């Protein structure tokens, strides 16, 4: 299958008042054509930084890609000029953000904001743009689109705004859509609607989607493949079936165990003890070792990346099951 996105050994550095930190420490993954890749992990694991780095939207001046590269449709876009990156954004690759309530500009109409990608990336005239916007608003399930285009964001509900955000992201038919926790801020019923909408769009357009979330239920619902991130590294990668049936990394197991289950109502909910360490104070060796129930002596040394039959895992527990040698990182 063709790769839409090929990220290899990506490192991002942030300059903070207390020196520089690396929220991404060597991340490599691919997104295939027409595939939905889920990225999961707790807050602060580097999920959003990964997507911002791919989009070229890292905060200017304070952060940079310090190592590795991003190939998009075969083109190296790691250090592309802002002008050329702009031609991709909203066009070939686009993004939906977590907070629909604050992600639309309150002083511009829905129509004005939706017209921007079309004005930037197509040669359509104003009337054609309006026709296209109304067509796309219908596609994302917004009633009375011809009225909605005249309205301001505060006149719409959260679910409606997220539909508008999705419309904004897909209006130029991108090849890659990055959805950064698009349902986290929404009511459960609206969540299901949005997930179904994304599934429908994917079915109709065959675009590739990177779906960032910490809701594993959503992952099971929509993703083909899953990446688990912890402290800026990928600790496990597997197709969705393998991930749910045979998770390998203790962190993945912890995440899965923390999901509330129907038959366990009376028992206390499982949690992973401790919390994600701050980037300034990462434990040496395996960064999960201080929270890991299976940690042993070897974990003080950085774990190898182990390629198993159907998944990849960065953990000492599986060092012996390696198929064809480890890269020792």
């Amino acid at each position, binding site marked *: 299958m063709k790769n839409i996105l090929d990220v290899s050994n990506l490192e991002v550095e942030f300059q903070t008042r207390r020196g520089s930190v690396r929220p991404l420490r060597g991340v490599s993954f691919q997104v295939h054509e027409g595939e939905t890749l889920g990225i999961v992990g707790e807050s602060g694991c580097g999920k959003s930084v990964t997507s911002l780095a791919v989009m070229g939207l890292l905060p200017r001046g304070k952060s940079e890609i310090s190592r590795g590269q991003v190939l998009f449709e075969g083109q190296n876009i790691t250090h592309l000029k802002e*002008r050329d990156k*702009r031609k991709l954004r909203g066009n070939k690759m686009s993004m939906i953000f977590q907070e629909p309530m*604050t*992600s639309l500009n309150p002083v*511009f109409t829905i129509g004005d*904001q939706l017209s921007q990608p079309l004005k*930037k990336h197509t040669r359509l005239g104003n009337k054609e743009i309006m026709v296209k916007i109304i067509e796309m608003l219908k596609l994302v399930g917004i009633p009375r689109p011809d009225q909605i285009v005249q309205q301001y964001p505060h006149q719409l509900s959260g679910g409606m705004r997220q539909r508008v*955000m999705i419309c904004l992201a897909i209006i130029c038919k991108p090849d890659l859509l990055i959805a950064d926790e698009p349902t986290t801020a929404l009511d459960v019923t609206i969540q299901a609607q949005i997930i179904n909408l994304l599934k429908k769009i994917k079915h109709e357009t065959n675009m590739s989607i990177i779906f960032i979330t910490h809701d594993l239920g959503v992952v099971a619902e929509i993703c083909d493949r899953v990446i688990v991130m912890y402290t800026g590294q990928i600790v496990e990668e597997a197709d969705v079936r393998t991930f749910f049936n045979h998770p390998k990394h203790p962190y993945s197991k912890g995440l899965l165990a923390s999901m509330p289950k129907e038959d366990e109502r009376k028992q206390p909910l499982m949690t992973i003890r401790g919390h994600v360490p701050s980037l300034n104070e990462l434990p040496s060796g395996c960064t999960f070792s201080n929270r890991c129930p299976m940690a042993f002596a070897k974990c003080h040394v950085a774990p190898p990346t182990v390629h198993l039959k159907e998944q990849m895992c960065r953990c000492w527990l599986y060092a012996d099951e390696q198929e064809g040698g480890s890269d020792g990182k």
Partner: protein
Amino acid sequence: MSEFVIKRFVQTIIVIFLALTGVFFLVRLSGDPTLLFLPPDAPKGQIEVFRHTLGFDRPMYVQYIDFISHAIHGDFGDSLVTKESALGMILSSFPATLQLALSAFVLSLVVAIPIGVFSAYKRDTLFDKLGVGLTVLGQAIPSFWLGLLFIYFFAVKLHWFPTGGRTTPISMVLPTVTLAIYSMARIVRFTRSKMLDVLKKDYIRTIRAAGVSTFEILTKYALKNALLPIITLIALDLGVLLEGAVITEIVFSWPGVGMQIMNALMDRDFPVVMAGIFLISLIYSVINFAADLLYSAVNPQIRLK
């Protein structure tokens, strides 16, 4: 909406009433005008007669009630010096003040908003730091002193501009710049900080993700959000400029309301002073009111109640 207008109208009346009351008693503290109009050796009887004709022999509260009841009808009496209508004198010098305030207003807007936006974009660079430093200076320097400095360098030493008066278009330059500096500095600082706030917002990231350029974000998307609070400040600034014009006029002998009030104070020409204060406070209140209306017009989320 109409409820809002009525409320503001009542507020405006109260503000003007308080301003007039305050000034009424303050100017009377400055002394009795009758002594100024008569020769120093005038006999006591003559002074008493003159004081009686002007009504200054009545108790203060009677004078005050008399003044207010006339002022309500727009009658501020006649000038003690020229015997012309006091309000008429003030109104005739108002165009000069308005000209000065408006040109300073336009100048500060045209200069300050782009500098503020650029400073925010270039945050923490040398340009930004220099700009912020200069704005602090611009706000700290009193305009009467700055005006004198300008006169000394550009008029006396370099002979580029006249020292004062309102004769040629070029005589506008120094008073306009002097008056504009303060609000210019204020608007630069305010624009910069509002732009910095807005540039951090999620919706700016959204529009960037849609492929909109930084230039367009600065000049359209972020600017409109930042302008909402800026507009209120700017509109208020027009009021401040009108006040400031009073001082600047005196430094540059600009024949406006300020000069008129100043001269009237020197002569203890109370009716003219009161008419001047009335006009300035009226305009100041109206401008504030207009600022609120403007704010609601540009911000769709605010519907006035």
